[in-house]
């Protein structure tokens, strides 16, 4: 096989393996750079608690973005997550405050409803072969609208379990995090194991790489695709619960546009919108980058919070272009290889019956 594993092959391959991690490494470098800039400019920025606050303030976003990572890796998209988060806060608050349900049961119901909602969208996407964009857009309107059938106003929560979760602090080494952070990190760990070590996770990558191939390789495409949306639904509902802990209220206007923040975090974390490429740890970095932008702007004090959006917008552009450039390089390296093998080895004439 020496003819096929030429030197050029090996060079592209070695570079290719490194290149896989470039987007994630770029995000890591970006995060460190921004944290460094913050530490240089503002007193008190370089502190372990500032870092942990990033997680405390964005734990719910991390959970939602992890669900989104599954969907994007499979080559789909889920626009309903923000609305499902809002609906979850609404249902949770209503059950606990207005119906006087036990908080744990209410949380369980919310998580189940979110999962079923995602499952339903997944089924429609798969069995009716409709683009996920439009199905989850419909799901977004539906979930957001349903919030207001419960109440058009914010429902504030006074239930002791929720207030305790909101105020509780897990302390270590002079620093602290909220229980929500621990939950989010558990979700992250589970997602990592599932994506890298389970058949379900590997099938998600395979579908994102080439759905038709995955089918012909005998992989359970239908089951996996639907599961992915159910996971995203579950993560949105859990994100909703964590947001309820954070805000202590249920409101139809919560998490407006969070689906876009989640997508932005995943993409900045190095995943491709076309699917099949990306890492859930990248998503963590993506969320941290979004968080550090907000933190810098609040430390700056005079800047309007809209600057957050502007910076996120610029970063998204940069990352999309970066991925494109990497992709193009890879393809052109490959095509150089293939043209060379065509031109250097003139094949003997083949008698071919064209059909």
């Amino acid at each position, binding site marked *: 096989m020496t003819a096929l594993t030429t030197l050029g092959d090996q060079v592209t391959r070695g570079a290719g393996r490194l290149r896989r991690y470039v987007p994630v490494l770029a995000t890591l470098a970006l995060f460190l750079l921004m944290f460094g800039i913050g530490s240089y400019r503002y007193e008190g920025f370089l502190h372990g608690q500032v870092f942990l606050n990033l997680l405390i303030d964005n734990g719910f976003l991390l959970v939602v973005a992890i669900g989104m990572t599954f969907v994007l890796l499979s080559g789909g998209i889920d626009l309903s997550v923000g609305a499902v988060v809002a609906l979850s806060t609404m249902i949770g608050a209503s059950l606990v405050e207005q119906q006087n349900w036990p908080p744990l049961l209410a949380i369980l119901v919310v998580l189940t409803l979110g999962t079923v909602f995602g499952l339903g969208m997944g089924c429609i996407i798969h069995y009716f072969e409709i683009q996920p964009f439009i199905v989850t857009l419909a799901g977004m309107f539906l979930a957001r609208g349903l919030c207001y059938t419960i109440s058009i106003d914010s429902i504030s929560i006074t239930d002791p379990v929720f207030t305790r979760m909101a105020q509780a602090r897990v302390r270590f080494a002079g620093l602290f995090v909220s229980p929500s952070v621990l939950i989010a990190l558990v979700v992250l760990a589970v997602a990592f194991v599932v994506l890298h070590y389970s058949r379900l996770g590997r099938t998600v990558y395979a579908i994102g790489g080439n759905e038709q191939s995955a089918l012909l390789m*005998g992989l359970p495409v239908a089951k996996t695709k639907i599961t992915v949306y159910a996971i995203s639904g579950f993560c949105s509902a859990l994100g909703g619960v964590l947001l309820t802990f954070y805000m202590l209220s249920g409101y139809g206007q919560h998490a407006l546009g969070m689906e876009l923040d989640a997508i932005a975090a995943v993409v900045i974390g190095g995943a491709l919108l076309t699917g099949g490429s990306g890492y859930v740890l990248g998503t963590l970095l993506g969320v941290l980058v979004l968080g550090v932008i907000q933190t810098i702007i609040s430390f700056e004090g005079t800047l309007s919070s809209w600057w957050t959006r502007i910076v996120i917008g610029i970063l998204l552009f940069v990352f999309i272009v970066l991925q494109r450039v990497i992709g193009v390089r890879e393809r052109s390296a490959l095509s150089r290889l293939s043209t060379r093998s065509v031109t250097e080895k003139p094949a003997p004439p083949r008698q071919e019956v*064209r059909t």
Partner: protein
Amino acid sequence: MAEPAILTMTGISKQFPGVKALDNVDFRLLPGEVHALLGENGAGKSTLIKVLTGVYSIDEGTIALEGAPVRFSGPSQAQQAGISTVFQEVNLCPNLSVAENIFIGREPRRFGAVRWQEVRRRAAELLHRLQLDLDVTARLSDYSIAVQQLVAIARAIDISPKVLILDEPTSSLDSSEVDELFRVMKQLRDEGTAILFVTHFLDQVYEISDRITVLRNGGLVGEFLTRDLPQLELVAKMIGKELEVLEELEEQPGREAAARAHAEPVLEASGLARTGAVAPFDLSVHRGEVVGLAGLLGSGRTELARLLFGADRADHGQIRIGGRPVALRGPGVAMANGVAFCSEDRRAEGLIEDLTVRENIVLALQASRGWTRPLSRRRQDELVEAYLRSLRITPANPELLVRDLSGGNQQKVLLARWLITNPRLLIVDEPTRGIDVGAKAEIQRLVVSLADDGMALLFISAELEEVLRLSHTIGVMRDRRMVATLANDDDVDTERVMRAIAEGAVA
């Protein structure tokens, strides 16, 4: 052949809306043989494979594997029963590693977690058995298509299949890669695997196969021992025409070479080039002349044609059309000057499949008139009617969607679209690719008669025989450079053109 068949298909029929794709077909496969399944497009080869692997259900007939009747609901079930398939396109995931592509869906696991080390170790072992030396942790997309195809085969044989189906595995491979594949196939055959091999390359059939089954129009023509069936007879069985007819097709009218080089030039290119696409070349095409372009895939034939049509802009040299210098800023300018271009990829770049035959045919004429001067419906019908008849497009129904036509007829619709604009120069890029022998002969005849009527043609084809038969002048392309221009007279033959392609100079 005393051994009992491992796979027997009896009386298989499969109906699609409007077509009987398979009609009472019998097929059997013996262990330890390479069995070629042959036939023209639409003969039912793919359908037979899809029926066998459970992609389609069967309407009638039975399949027996090792004597026991089976019926599969999908490829994964067939795989479990020991029937592995490698399809024409590489059906693997480019974003996953080589090792994972071989084992995904059946990875060794412990407590539900994939054991990556074990996956890599076994993948390396398996590839080693096939004498392939790959980095199993590299992404599949880092390797060439040929290697990917071999990885697909590695995946297929990991389950030690009783039956291995290879559906046109060689169409993307070059000759040394084909040798590599054949070595693996022979190894597997000697280990007792029954291999079903579909290909369009007849010399490969004779190189590797032990037996041949021929299908035609969904029906079984017969099963033959390869060594008992001469190649010409095989072709006759595939296309269903008598040998004499076939030979007549082969003997197209001899071209009175160089006779037309003195006619007035329609298009002259001098020093035309586009950096990275085509090196500078000179070319002139005269009235009534067919200029053939020969060369390997990727040698720059299509790129050259695109320059002449203005689809890509040249950055050197100039073009004169009808004696006047023309700046080809785009295809519109070329069309206005009477140049028409039938592209190679008729699906992606030429025809609009969801429009009718009539709409496709009038498209270019309408475009050249501009949208302010629409063609009346009556005029459209007249024109389309005339071309349906003269090009013998079947079915001759102008309101049929183009997607429902066969490849050959689609090609004729594309030709009609350009002929209707009455061009002075017609560029045809691979007009006979992927169409059956009969339609191919008709298109070749059409090229000849158009030239006889005074049209200039630039004819691009990967098939040397065809270029030689039709052209008055042959331009030979190699490495994006026109290495020779040969007047097609008596001492030009396939061998000489091939040598020009291979060595880059006329011997």
